[in-house]
């Protein structure tokens, strides 16, 4: 047998034609690999374009120091250069060269019609800066840089705020291509002349929203588990025919528009709604507030996300033969003991999968909290949406999104350490 095997001088096995066997094998497999790659290429391309690139773009926006589409140092090259010599801690206004540089840069910005965007960018950091930029643009464009100096007095003529040291400190702090200020804002912190500080407690909205989002998502996950487990068990236990019927009922919400379902809850839960009317009919005098608060969000989202808990649970329970419970009972265990020690531990992969699915979906939920959340039931995603659409502060929205992404990945990591992702079974 060994006589058929050929070796080279290093003891490696050679193929029949004398090439090393490994090389020969790789060549034989190459065609297969290329074919496999071609098969997944369309999806790979799609995912790259529609998922990887946008997320990368979003992550970048959270640190890019831009106004509109251009970086601040490109819009204000002269100011950025001159202001390096000025120290906010000195307590004095910047010197004339800085004002002269500002006049130059503002004039160019006005020509290019982006001086208001510059103002808006600095307004995110210090409220009030938007108006002085807007006010100054046209007037500065009429000045002659060579002859009309000194400019400090002229700027102070336009607005006294051009002498505000905090504003100049803001400009200096945000004069780089990249900035941490969006992330600071996402954590309710800000940069002041005394360094990085937390905002006043009554202004800390994002940390509050983040905690609320995580807590409500956890609560919703628990509710779907408490309601879904018995249903999944029933489904797994029933004969196939009736189980299919029930499964369709479970899936029915999937085929109904999310908006319709959420609106239906509005009708049911509102002050003059069906449930409250019934409540009054029972003889109670006070109507309950069931919607436009956290309770409403929990009720509606538990209902909407329930199938995501039931389906993984069901698919795991389906694989547990009834003989395990029978065996436990024949060995002397009561129904409760048999369930707790034999059945329940075997369903943990399903509980893990369902909880992870529901929790991650809940954390990022937007429409339902927007519609039924009222003032105290909105999620972080509603705030992110607001920053994107109404406020136009894409940098902050991106930073909040990034924080959310990191928090979810962190929770996923903790979950992996505690339960083990290998134990997650979706079917």
């Amino acid at each position, binding site marked *: 047998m060994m006589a058929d095997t050929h070796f080279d001088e290093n003891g490696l096995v050679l193929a029949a034609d004398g090439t090393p066997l490994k090389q020969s094998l790789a060549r034989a497999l190459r065609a297969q690999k290329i074919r496999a790659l071609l098969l997944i290429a369309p999806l790979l391309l799609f995912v790259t374009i529609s998922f990887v690139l946008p997320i990368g773009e979003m992550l970048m926006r959270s640190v890019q120091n831009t106004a509109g589409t251009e970086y601040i140092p490109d819009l204000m090259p002269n100011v950025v250069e001159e202001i390096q010599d000025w120290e906010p801690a000195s307590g004095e206004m910047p010197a004339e060269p800085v004002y002269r540089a500002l006049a130059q840069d503002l004039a160019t910005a006005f020509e290019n019609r982006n001086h208001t965007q510059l103002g808006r960018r600095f307004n995110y950091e210090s409220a009030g800066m938007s108006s002085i930029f807007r006010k100054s643009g046209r007037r500065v464009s009429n000045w002659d840089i060579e002859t009309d100096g000194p400019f400090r007095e002229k700027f102070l003529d336009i607005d006294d705020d051009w002498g505000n040291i905090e504003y100049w400190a803001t400009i200096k702090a945000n004069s780089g291509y990249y900035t941490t200020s969006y992330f600071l804002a996402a954590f309710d912190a800000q940069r002041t002349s005394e360094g990085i500080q937390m905002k006043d407690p009554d202004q800390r909205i994002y940390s509050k929203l983040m905690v609320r989002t995580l807590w409500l998502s956890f609560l919703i996950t628990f509710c779907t588990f408490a309601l879904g487990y018995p249903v999944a068990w029933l489904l797994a236990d029933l004969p196939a025919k009736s189980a299919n019927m029930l499964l369709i009922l479970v899936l029915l919400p999937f085929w109904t528009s999310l908006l319709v379902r959420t609106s239906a809850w509005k009708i049911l839960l509102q002050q003059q709604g069906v449930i409250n009317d019934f409540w009054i009919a029972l003889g109670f005098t006070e109507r309950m507030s069931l919607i436009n608060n956290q309770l409403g969000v929990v009720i509606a989202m538990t209902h909407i996300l329930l199938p995501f808990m039931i389906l993984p649970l069901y698919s795991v329970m389906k694989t547990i*033969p009834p*003989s*395990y419970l*029978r*065996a*436990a*009972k*024949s*060995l*002397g*265990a*009561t*129904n409760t*003991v*048999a369930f707790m*020690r*034999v059945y329940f*531990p*075997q369903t943990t992969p399903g509980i893990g999968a369902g909880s992870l699915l529901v929790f991650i979906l809940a954390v990022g939920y937007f429409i339902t909290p927007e519609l039924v959340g009222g003032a105290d039931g909105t999620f972080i995603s509603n705030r992110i949406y607001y920053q994107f659409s109404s406020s136009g502060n894409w940098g902050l929205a991106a930073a909040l999104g990034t924080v959310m992404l990191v928090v979810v990945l962190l929770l996923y990591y903790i979950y992996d350490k505690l339960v083990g992702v290998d134990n997650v079974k979706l079917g």
Partner: protein
Amino acid sequence: MSGNSSTDAFVAFEHVQKSYDGVQLVVKDLNLAVPRGEFLTMLGPSGSGKTTCLMMLAGFETATHGEIKLDGKPINNIPPHKRGIGMVFQNYALFPHMTIAENLSFPLEVRKIGKSEREEKVKRALDMVQMGDFGNRRPAQLSGGQQQRVALARALVFEPELVLMDEPLGALDKQLREHMQFEITNLAHELGITTVYVTHDQTEALTMSDRIAVFDDGRIQQLATPDKLYEQPENSFVAQFIGENNTFEGTVKEISNGQAIVELDDGEVIDCTPVNVSKPGERTLISIRPERVEIDKSRLKEGVHTLKAEVLEFIYMGDIFRTRLRVAGQDDFIIKTRNAPDQVRLKPGQQIEIGWLPEDCRALDA
């Protein structure tokens, strides 16, 4: 048809009926008594009601009518966990999230037995099935045969007096199955426990059991020791279900001195023993085992009827020869002859005469 009287039986079914849908009975008036220490097998095709009977005994199904008694006491209303019956399941049902030792410890824990005693009993039970070194493994790390042993040890670890087994060897390959058959019967007899064993494999039933209850259509067709069941089947179902079997249809011509003469449908006449026939003119099914057919005329009794046969096929099977003949117009008549030095090897086309002892040929219900 029931064996011992049910008063001194350890397990007794009295007029038990079972229906799942209220329309059809899957078990029809079952009476069965199993004495202490017996290895009884319930044998039958699928759907014959044997597993239902086992489940009723274990407590997972309730009898629609009748009474099941364990050691003289009715157990119809006792839940399964209080019956104290060991059970081995078809797929073993070893708890996958527990180690082997934890699996065995489980019945002892729920009985609130102390830790040291528990460990000792688990060890003894594992040693009993030669699995002493596997306590820390998980069921998935064991082979089918090893899992089977553990399942057996788990069913025995709390020292039940009755053990039920539901086709426990079905998933094993032939060689292992034969080995386990031997081990299970040895263990059961050694420990003196009563065993009720369910299988659809007749060889398994014949090799393992003290007695076999053959089930069909919700009834016990015959309850007997393996040799009686094989050699003296009481009806045509049992004759055809157990072992290989040649059959003819015919009409009884006369019955005298415990012997019958039957005229086959093509006019030939044979001798046989009447079992389910009582008077001339009745239709009957004749059953004769292939290995009881004699091809050497000199070894037959004087005056018995013989049949002409034509050899169609000769198959060499090692220990035996299997020959297919055309007899009385049927060409599926099989005979088996031992591969002995002086045994004749028939050739296709050969014309021979066959016969048998009247005791070996049974006239059953048509």
